[in-house]
């Protein structure tokens, strides 16, 4: 069970990091940004490419990968969200535009082969690759029966530190107050002289930077980088985590991420390896029946 507990904490951290960015956009905009999973993949893919195909040091590549993901946040805002806001489209329309962008990003990366248009970004097509151990050292410690891998251990302090910083920024700074004002009532915020568009852009930049970072850590820890890593389990679980935590609540996303990781691993150990998804989602279902607003979803809709 002990090693399994560590497994749960590691995957929980990644769920949390992914979900924090996801929930931030929901908190401010009331919109699910379904391109978040593509940004998660994009961050990992570009970082891999910078390390392996362009020979950069891992940490430099990480910074550039996170910056590229942040830029992708601006693309999401300007391509998928702002034009819809201008035309007062219902929030559901943003679901479609962000899914569309996600598919385009995945398809573009998928086409990356030597000699192709996207070769500078990705050359491995649909293949799955791993960071070479020479470029990304992954020290492993054995403590008793436990195995601690550096690539997984670092996720925990990074996740917690980032979430604390984000929580502080939202709660105590001018920018955070601006974000909360927009989340509360965009029209009132605008009347008070806030540049709402700028606030929304900022939200997407922060959210996407976090998503990209989560992707990089995922790729390094699980030795799996491909055009598809954001899909399937990560995207659906990210959604589950933010619902569990309370839509729009950053603290809820953190707790929800760890909780889902724990429930899943517990299901595997206690019931059987093929019970993971079923038990986890049954627990979610129960949770929602008992507490529809999620763990941290305030009744009064105080968001982010």
């Amino acid at each position, binding site marked *: 069970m002990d090693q399994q507990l560590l*497994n749960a904490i590691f995957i929980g951290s990644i769920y949390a990091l992914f979900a924090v960015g996801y929930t931030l956009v929901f908190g401010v905009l009331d919109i699910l940004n379904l391109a978040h999973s593509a940004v998660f993949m994009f961050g990992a893919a570009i970082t891999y490419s910078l390390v392996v195909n362009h020979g950069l040091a891992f940490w430099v590549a990480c910074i550039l990968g996170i910056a590229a993901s942040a830029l992708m946040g601006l693309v999401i805002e300007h391509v998928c969200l702002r034009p819809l806001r201008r035309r007062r489209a219902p929030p559901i329309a943003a679901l479609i535009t962000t899914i569309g962008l996600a598919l385009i990003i995945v398809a573009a990366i998928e086409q990356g082969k030597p000699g192709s248009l996207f070769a500078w970004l990705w050359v491995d097509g649909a293949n*799955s690759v791993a960071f070479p151990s020479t470029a990304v050292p992954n020290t492993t410690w054995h403590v008793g029966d436990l195995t601690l891998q550096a690539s997984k251990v670092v996720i925990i302090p990074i996740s917690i530190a980032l979430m604390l910083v984000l929580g502080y920024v939202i709660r105590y700074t001018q920018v955070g107050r601006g974000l909360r004002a927009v989340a509360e009532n965009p029209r009132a915020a605008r009347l008070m002289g806030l540049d709402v568009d700028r606030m929304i852009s900022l939200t997407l930049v922060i959210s996407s930077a976090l998503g990209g970072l989560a992707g990089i850590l995922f790729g390094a820890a*699980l030795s799996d980088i491909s055009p598809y890593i954001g899909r399937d389990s990560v995207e659906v679980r990210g959604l589950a985590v933010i619902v569990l935590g309370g839509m729009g609540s950053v603290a809820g996303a953190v707790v929800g991420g760890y909780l889902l990781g724990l429930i899943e691993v517990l299901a595997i150990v206690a019931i059987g*390896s*093929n019970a*993971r998804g079923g038990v986890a989602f049954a627990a979610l279902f129960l949770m929602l029946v008992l507490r529809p607003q999620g763990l941290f979803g305030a009744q009064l809709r105080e968001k982010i």
Partner: protein
Amino acid sequence: MKRLHLVGLLAVAALVAACGSSGGGAPSYSGKTIKLGAILSLTQAGGVYGPQGRDGMNLAVKQINASGGVNGAQISLTVRDDASDKAQSAAVAQTLIQQDQVMALLGPTLSNSAVAVHPLAESLKTPILAVSTTGIHIVPDCNFPTTTPCKFVFRDSLGEETAIPANIKSYVADSHPKTGVLLVAQDDKFSSDGGQIVQNNVAANGIDLLKTVKFNKGEADLSPYVTQAVQLRPDVIFITSLGAIPAKIMIEARRQGWQGQFLGGNGFNTATVSKQAADKGKGARSASAWYIGNTFASNADFVSAYKAEYNGTDPDQFSAQGYAAIKILADSAKRANLTFTDLAGDREKLRAAMEKVNIQTPLGPFQFTADHDVKQTVWVIAMDGVGGFTLVHELK
């Protein structure tokens, strides 16, 4: 005068026609096109295997067309991606058969998709040659549980029912392992078939299967499953899964400190998997339908032509099977006396000719068995830790 001219022309024409068809009595297909369609997984899980298959096929088409075609006919190959999805695979097959009117099909890449595609081709009486599917009930019983042999379905890939037992047996002879754990993706036909074959063969080889750990192929984090396996300290971990899964399991198991032997199936047999697993995969063994250094007559030519065509990239088993498939279809078409006017009749003629194929391929001398399956040498190979494979045993 004019009439004489005409007679002369006719005589010349008759002579030319006679010369054209005098080469061993083969019919002339001059000016015609043999349309073939390939359904391959170029993206998603099977994207690890499909592109090499396509490259092998394209190379064979290019070579055949450059050297005069099939009795003068050019081969035109349409490759379509099924995104590793069963439903899309069937839709693509239907389009190729009915809309594009291809004479024969190749593929699909994954056994999971073959379950939908092969019965469809059979019902539409279109020959289909499986180039990489290794699951159970591919040939001859494509309509399993109905056991009537499928007339139009052939395969040039080595079934896991042959490959996995051969691999286990050869490793047991070398190292006498006592215990094993099986890790298997349960929601994929290729993977679960492979798992079934492992389960059926461990006892006879004296291995105690301590546990079977099942998971779903779409799961991102496999470490809890690997932990379950590693905690039992088995001598062998069997992995019957595809795409990125084998490499992810190997990396995680080594990081968790496990030192035993990985044994697998066809999912191991491509450079992409060996490259992803890198040093963590070194020594992982599987039985392959092809080995780059094999000494069959046409293999060296194939390898050098492939490298010349694709910027020095080594072919893998899937390239060799794709390449061989085109050669098999071309040879069959050559002997089939095609009309190019009656598509249904031509498909039937091609099918009949495929049953009598007997040619040299990079896979070895090639003939189909009575069940339309392949009978060939099995190569036990091991990952070399740097993206390639080394030969362990040749099993005739």
